[in-house]
């Protein structure tokens, strides 16, 4: 916690929602513009890291509890892997998105969004968990 540095704290508070919104934009607009799940994951992890640097590790842990963050790491991989299962069960190739909706355009859009969500969750929580692990060691 940086005490007395009002400009830094107010500036960070002003920036944080926009950084988080940008991460969501990068994720959901990945089909059309640059970026995707990976970049969005890093940016959203960066939001919490900035919050931890300016407002202290304890405050950040209340926002994103480490126990939950560590459980999201495998959850992302599972979401990605599970996206391919419906196709497998219906007799198509694994990760063939065409079974996810009636017309091809929507099926691919949904499939890509789902796997990118898996990537986002894993990347974001991995970055954050590594940051927590480093920051916690420093205070012993």
């Amino acid at each position, binding site marked *: 916690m940086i005490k007395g540095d009002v400009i830094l704290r107010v500036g960070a508070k002003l920036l944080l929602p926009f950084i988080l919104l940008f991460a969501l934009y990068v994720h959901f607009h990945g089909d059309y513009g*640059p970026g995707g799940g990976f970049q969005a994951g890093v940016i959203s992890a960066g939001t919490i890291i900035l919050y931890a640097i300016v407002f202290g590790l304890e405050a950040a842990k209340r926002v994103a509890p480490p126990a939950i963050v560590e459980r999201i790491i495998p959850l992302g991989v599972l979401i990605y892997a599970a996206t391919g299962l419906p196709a497998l069960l219906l007799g198509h190739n694994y990760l063939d998105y065409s079974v996810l909706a009636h017309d091809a355009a929507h099926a691919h859009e949904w499939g890509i969004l789902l796997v990118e969500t898996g990537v986002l969750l894993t990347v974001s929580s991995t970055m954050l968990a590594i940051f927590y692990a480093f920051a916690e060691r420093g205070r*012993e």
Partner: protein
Amino acid sequence: MEATIAMTLLTILAVITLAIIPQRNLFGVIMLSSAYSFVMASVLIVLDAVDVAMTEASVGAGVSTVVLLAALHLTGGQEYPRPRTALLPMFVATVTGAALIWGTYSLPGFGSPDKVIHTHTVPRYIAESASHAMPPNIVTAVLADFRGYDTLGETTVIFTAGIGVLLLLKGRRRKANDASGDGR
């Protein structure tokens, strides 16, 4: 114009690299390598690789700088003086550098359109992403759709790497706590 910008940015990269070499203050090294990543992201934008540029800016200049600073907080900010002459490291660095430069001679020329990376699968991706109702950003289509298996593997690699780092950083601490508990 584009070549001029690229050359200027590459010159800045070389200057930053040369500035890192004599640096003994590790905080300075981290800040310079962060600046390196940021300039590298600009180079990638000039080369029209915006997706890679975004990754470089967020991972290279952002998160890895923070993690390195956290590591610096644990280890102390000054590099130890060299214990003896650096002949062997010098030799290894020279040989590795020479091998890398020698390797660049067999790479295809920059942007040459007739080489195999541009003729093997890329035309299929470009043609089919238009006809198969793929997203307009072909990079996303290739990553998440054409090469979905690869990206699943990549995500698993990130998962494995994260778990490995967490085990290294957290497992040892628990052992230390146990040892102190036994002592009491």
